[in-house]
Every structure is written in C-alpha cells, then in structure tokens.
C-alpha cells in the first residue's frame, strides 16, 4: 500500500508538470495579446514594456520561462504575478476559493442525496409511474444547459427581478464568515441549479447498476435467508451498485472545485471559475497557469481519493 501511494504521488507530480507545460504551450503559442504590454498598461512607453519584458523573463526562450516558473514554485512557493490585478497569483486564487467551495460542496450534498434516493426508489419500483416520471425528468435535466436553468431560476425566484422574489439573486454572494444567513440565501439557487443535472445523471446511473445487481444470485440467496427486503436492497444491493457513483462523484466534485465557471458567471459569484475566465479573456498568463494547476490538482487528488474509497467499498480491490 505504501509503495502504491508513493507511486501515485509521483504520478501526480508528473501529471501536474505535464498539465502546466501544456498550459504554457497553449497560452504561449497562441496568445491573444503581448503579456508585457498587458502588464505595462495602456499608456506605457516602449522602454517600460521592454523593462517589464526583462523583469518577468518574457524576453527569454519558452523553456527558460518554464524553468523560472517551476523554480519559483518549488523554492519560494511563488506562482507568479497576475498582470492585470498586480497581485500574487496564489493570494488571488486563495481569496476566491471559499466562494467556489461553497458552491461545489453545497450542490454536491444536494445532488448526491437526491440522486441516490431517486435512483434507489426508481430501481426498486421499476416501471411504476414514479419511476417513469422521475426518469423522464432526469433525461430533461441532463439535456438542459446549466446557465440557462440559472437564468430561468433567476427570472422566477431572484429577490430583485424574480416573479416570486424569495431567494438571493445574481451578485448577492456574501462570505459565510461575514454574513452566514446572507451566504445561505445567495447559495440556494446556485446549489439547486447546479445539482439538477448531476442528480439526474446519478439517479439514472444508480438505477441502471442497481437493477443489474438485484438480478445477481447472491441477492436471491439473501432473500432466501429471509432477510427483510429493505436490508437486501440497502446492504446487499446498494453497497455493490454504489461504486460507479463513487467514481463519478469524485471526478465531478474535483472538477467543480477547480471552478464552476458557468454557474459562477450566471450568478455572479466571485469564485475560481470566474477568476480563470477573466484571466483567459485578459491573457493573464500566470493567473491562467495558477487556476489551471489548481483545477488539475483537485481532479488528480479526487482520483486518488476515489481509488482509496474503492478499496474500502470493494474488498476484492487490492493495490500492488
């Protein structure tokens, strides 16, 4: 197990380097503006631009720049400077993290609970009216763009423009440390909107696997032993059928923690997603790098956690 974990951590590092090199290439080879000029501002003299180019090593070859970037991270924990905001990238990213975590965790709890509940009920009451209704709605949920659902939700329920003004609207985000009630009020619509598509996907996934599992021989054995149906479904069925859900959940949550771009834009939430989006619009290279690295980090860590949880859920899985 120790060897396995060491290998995974090494692989994580290699992946992170690969992702940053790729980011460098994409945003360096195809830049939409000169980074030095962006950093210098609108009224800079050619001389000032040259100075900045030199100071941030922008006059050096790509490989040197990459080297300086990694050197800064490893020796000083320095992820570079955002040209546009004139602030260290690490500081900017950390200041935006709470908003994204709020969106992601709240929505995740919502979609996990509702998705699993609907999935189990639909599988057990297969072909019932409830099953058919929820599964049809789930397919609609999967087919709807999240930003459009967000706008519809705002149009209906936002307390500034909504027809039934009961919940915080766009731009109403408050940090939980400053105003917990305001935070909750501003988060409810984004949570619901974000959770819809995921809950739809999870309920379909769980229904499918659970139906398959319930046809297995050991389920018949459990029933033959005289176990109550509830125990058979929950302990023998769901426990085996939950593994694909665990995989999907880890990856989805990891991806969301790296920034829920669409939802953050529609609800005007100052999170990582919007930070990255603005960084790309302004070709703010180090900030793009920082946000991409953070997003990749979450995805990779989520993968690792998923594999460990797998071993716990399924005793047959052993890591060499």
């Amino acid at each position, binding site marked *: 197990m120790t060897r396995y974990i060491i290998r995974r951590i090494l692989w994580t590092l290699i*992946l992170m380097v*690969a*992702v940053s090199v*790729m*980011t460098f290439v*994409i*945003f360096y*080879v*195809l*830049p*939409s503006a000169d980074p030095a000029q962006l950093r210098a501002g609108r009224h800079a003299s050619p001389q000032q631009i040259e100075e900045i180019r030199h100071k941030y090593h922008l006059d050096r070859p790509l490989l040197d720049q990459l080297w300086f970037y990694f050197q800064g991270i490893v020796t000083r924990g320095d992820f570079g400077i955002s040209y546009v905001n004139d602030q260290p990238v690490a500081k900017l990213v950390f200041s935006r993290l709470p908003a994204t975590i709020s969106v992601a965790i709240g929505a995740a709890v919502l979609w996990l609970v509702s998705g699993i509940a609907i999935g189990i009920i639909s599988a*057990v009451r*297969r*072909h019932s009216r409830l099953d058919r209704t929820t599964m049809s709605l789930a*397919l*609609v949920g*999967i*087919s*709807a*763009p999240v*930003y*459009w659902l967000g*706008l*519809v939700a*705002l*149009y209906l329920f936002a307390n500034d*423009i909504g027809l039934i003004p009961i919940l915080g609207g766009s731009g109403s985000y408050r940090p939980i440390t400053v105003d917990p009630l305001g935070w909750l009020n501003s988060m409810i619509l984004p949570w619901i909107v974000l959770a819809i598509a995921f809950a739809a996907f999870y309920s379909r996934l769980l229904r*499918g696997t659970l*139906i*398959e599992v*319930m*046809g297995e021989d050991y389920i018949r054995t459990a029933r033959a032993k005289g176990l109550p*149906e509830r125990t058979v*479904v929950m302990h023998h069925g769901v426990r085996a059928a939950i593994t694909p859900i665990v995989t999907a959940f880890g990856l989805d949550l990891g*991806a969301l923690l*790296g*920034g829920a*771009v*669409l939802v953050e*834009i*529609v609800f005007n939430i100052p999170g990582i*997603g919007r930070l*990255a*989006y603005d960084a*790309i*619009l302004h070709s703010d290279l180090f900030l*793009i790098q920082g*946000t*991409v690295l953070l*997003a*990749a980090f979450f*995805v*990779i860590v989520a993968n690792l956690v998923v594999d460990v949880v797998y071993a716990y859920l399924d005793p047959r899985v052993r890591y060499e």
Partner: protein
Amino acid sequence: MSTGTLLEEAFDSDAMGRPEVVAARTPSQRFWRRFRQDRVALASLGFIVFLILVAVFAPVVVAIAGTPGPNTIDSNLLNSFGMPTGPSLEHPFGVDGLGRDVLSRTVYGARTSLEISILATLIATFVGVILGMAAGFFGGWVDTIVSRSVDVMLAFPVFLLALGLASGCSLGNGCAGGLIQPGISTVVAVIALVSWTYPARLIRGQVLSLKQKEFVDASRSLGASNTRIIFREILPNLVVPIIVYASLMIPTNILLEAALSFLGAGVPAPTASWGAMISDATSIFETAWWYMLFPGVAIVLTALAFNLVGDGLTDAMNPRASD
C-alpha cells in the same frame, strides 16, 4: 423486484408469447430489430430528422414563417427605451436587443448547433477509435502513450482548455499552421480535442477483452495478419458500441458548443448560435424573457431528442440492463 416481474419477463419473451420461426440473426441485426421496437426512440429520431431538415432548409423555413432573415437589424422593432419587443404575429418569438427576429435566429442556430456537434462527434469518435484500438491491441509503449495522454487530458479543466484554444485560434490566421481557421472549424476542433478521450478509453477496454477471445486466436492460427485481425475480426464487434457511444456524445457536444458560445468562445458574431443568444439575453432577460427562453428550449429539445435516441440504442445493445 418480486417474482412477479420475473414471471412477466419470462412470459414476455419471444419464445413464450409470440412463437415464431427461429431465424439466425447476427448480433447487429438483433440490435436494429430491438431498436425499431422502441417507439420513444423512433419518435425522437423522427424529431431529429425534422430538425436536420429545418437546419438545412433554414432559408425556406424562415420564408414560410414570413420573418426577416437572421441578421436583418431593424431598430424600429425596439421600443422607445431601446428595449426589444416581445412575441407578436409578425415576430412569433419576439426580437433581440438589435431588433433581429428571434425565430429566424433560433432556426439558423440549429445549423450551427447540429453542424458543429455532429462533425466534432465524428472526428472525436474516429480519433478515439483509432487510438483506443491501437492502445488495446498492441499494448506496450503505444498503450502507455495513449493512456497517459488520456490521463493528462482528463486532468485538464475542459472549459479552460477549450476557452484558451478557442480564443487563440479565433484570431487572424487561426492555429495549427492555418489548418484550423477561425469560425466553425475552430469550435469543431476544440470540441473534438476535449472529447476523443472518452471513446478512446471505452474502445481500449473493449479491445483488451475481445483480443482474448477464441475467434481471434483461431484467426491468428490460420495465419491472419494484425491488420486483418484488427479490421476483419475485432472492428466488426465494435460497430454497435461505437454507434451507441457516438449517439450519446452528440447531445453532450450540443451542450458543449452552446456553453462555449455562451462564454464567447463559439462561432463569431453575427452567426446565430443558441448559446450566444442566451449570453446576449443575460443582460436584458428580466424584461426580454423571450430572448432567453426560445434558444434555451431549442437546446433542451434537441439534446433531449438525441439523448432519447442514445438511450434507445443503449437498450437495444444491452437489453437486460434496461429492463
């Protein structure tokens, strides 16, 4: 989950309910037979054909509807505050912030959406199948390169990658040495680039299990070459999973195209695109609800139809999982 359903299933089978002459059918014949019995999927397929016709004959559709062209700007259609006017007899879906007809733009938006999502799916599936087959069949360093590239792609945040590529390639002469020009081909390339990994992984897994099968050994012992085994023995067994998977990628790519357009990285204006229409509507939707509503409904219906067909194909491939 009681014995009732088991009995139902038993009586429902062809052998019990409808005795018929047993004919030898290939797995793919059985696949299409089952699919043709799925009414919801067939109706959805009909809707998709209708949509494709609407997209192809967009000028005719707009002429029949009697609405102006998708890029006709008419400021007379804005009210005295400069806000667009809502649905009326002349403009059933209302007009947008520039006074363009929303119905016409929604119809032309179908072109953008279908063209990009279908093309991107075809390219991604082709690339994914080739790489997945190579990785699964040859193993070794080929597998290492393909699988590790997939890992890197999956760790990369899709939207940021797509946005970066789309904004980089949509300037001047495009990118990749002029191969990818600004416009539709940029969006197609971006979507294909972020979506080939899924079919690649799926096909790799399928090939790994197929190449252990006896019929492959038999073919090899008869002296068949690798090329022959790949294309004559393994590929025919992958046709159905490839069709099913591609059919489920199209709705995903419809949503991805719309999201890219929403973020300003889709086809350039003034080409009509549903995602870009919703993005434009964001600043005025509290009054001009029609501008937000109709393109959104168009996306949902289109993606839903493709998802229903994909579901039907999945059930036909794997009848026991569905029921």
